[in-house]
């Protein structure tokens, strides 16, 4: 880091992804999304627009929902990342179960982003009414138009999941 030219070289970083610590050497221009999908084979996180507009790439970074396509992986050294692969355990997370039970998807491509985003929404605790949930899920587009059932699923999960402290 003391080189006067600061060449475009790969950089060491540590990420905790779904509870597993990864020591990685990553080129600065690698997005978190590409790192997850191409290097770590965590392909549950989807690449939709790759411009921060569709929300398909949403993951939780230190508990906050973010668009992984606009994050340079090197900028998140030391962070804890949760992707869709880390949401459930032996069984489905109540939010995942609610998506299944409420038929909240058709093609499913946006679903990992929808679920990570909704987990962030539930943790933030600013959405109470239907309109507030709609507004605070507006960063996730669904080309199949499953919005009504996504809303129902999130409400069902909010009713069953205890609000984190």
């Amino acid at each position, binding site marked *: 880091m003391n080189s006067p*030219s600061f060449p475009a070289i790969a950089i060491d970083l540590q990420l905790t992804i779904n509870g597993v610590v990864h020591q990685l050497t990553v080129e600065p221009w690698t997005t978190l999304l590409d790192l997850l999908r191409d290097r770590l084979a965590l392909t549950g996180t989807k690449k939709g627009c790759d411009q921060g507009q569709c929300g398909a790439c949403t993951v939780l970074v230190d508990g*906050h929902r973010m668009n992984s396509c606009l994050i340079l992986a090197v900028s998140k050294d030391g962070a804890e990342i949760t992707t869709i692969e880390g949401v459930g355990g032996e069984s489905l997370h109540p939010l995942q179960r609610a998506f299944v039970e409420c038929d909240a998807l058709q093609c499913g491509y946006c679903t990992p982003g929808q679920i990570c985003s909704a987990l962030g929404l539930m943790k933030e605790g600013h959405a109470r009414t239907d309109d507030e949930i709609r507004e605070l899920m*507006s960063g996730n587009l669904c080309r199949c138009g499953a919005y009504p059932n996504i809303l129902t699923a999130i409400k069902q999960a909010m009713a069953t999941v205890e609000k984190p402290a």
Partner: protein
Amino acid sequence: MNRFGYTRPETVATALEQVREIPGAQFLGGGTNLVDLIKENIARPNVLVDVGRLPLDQVVRLPGGGLRIGARVSNAAVAYHPEVGRDYPLLAKAILAGASPQLRNMATTGGNLLQRTRCYYFYDPAVPCNKRVPGTGCPAKEGFNRIHAILGTSEHCIAVHPSDMCVALAALKATVHVEGPDGPRSIPFAEFHRLPGDTPEQDSSLRPAELITAVELPAEDFSAHHAYLKVRDRDSYAFALVSVAAALKLTAGRITQARLALGGVAHKPWRDETAEALLLGQLPTDAVFKFVAAHVLLTAQGFQNNHFKIELARRAIVRALRGALTSEAQP
């Protein structure tokens, strides 16, 4: 993506030194705009100096009652900050009217000020653009200019500044604190962003190698009478066609203080101090609001596809001022 180097300094002094010393170095904040611009080959930094570890993440109450927001406090953290909600609800509402929850979690206070226009021609390297490559021309003037400016344009550029947050900061008379090669200085918000003139490539009055360290809000309470009205094609997660930040103080039924700023209409957040002065001493009636709205748009000039914005802005100003009387979020 193009290749670039990366540093993550721990101190402001080191960050300033790196951006000054390394050719082609540029600060990286939340990345929501810059990373996209790099992907699109619009921004071509040689090295990114990540400000993400700098100690600029505090919201501090000032002795005089103002609030100082560190440059890398996220847009979400500002919008949901209890003291912002209580004393500067106009700012909270403007921030929450912009972008998406994910982007607001990433985007920083300083970065929001420095985001570039979303003009289609600026974003398309295959076409000329005076903002992207000075001297090449402005296809927007004769092109698809529905989203473009109606106030303060020049023959070289009709792009608009895309921020909602900055419209509220203009109305609230914020101050931008920066540090650079010449030391620290403070820039009144009205002087931070600029009109395109002959140099549309310059969005702001920030000098080379200067870093925004904080945004300061003065100790003025408009919490009783304010509104942020955003008119857009889609009711959420879309840039403004026209937005209005309005803030009033009323004494014995008359307007004793007024702030009015517009977004989506100019190269900068468009605060109109003459219009504010016209409101002083007046009763808050529709007739007064319509008179003032007409005044704001006196010099407006439309292009083929955006003439509608002139009337839209007039009506939005009236609605926002009316809404400010009761502090409705979206009157």
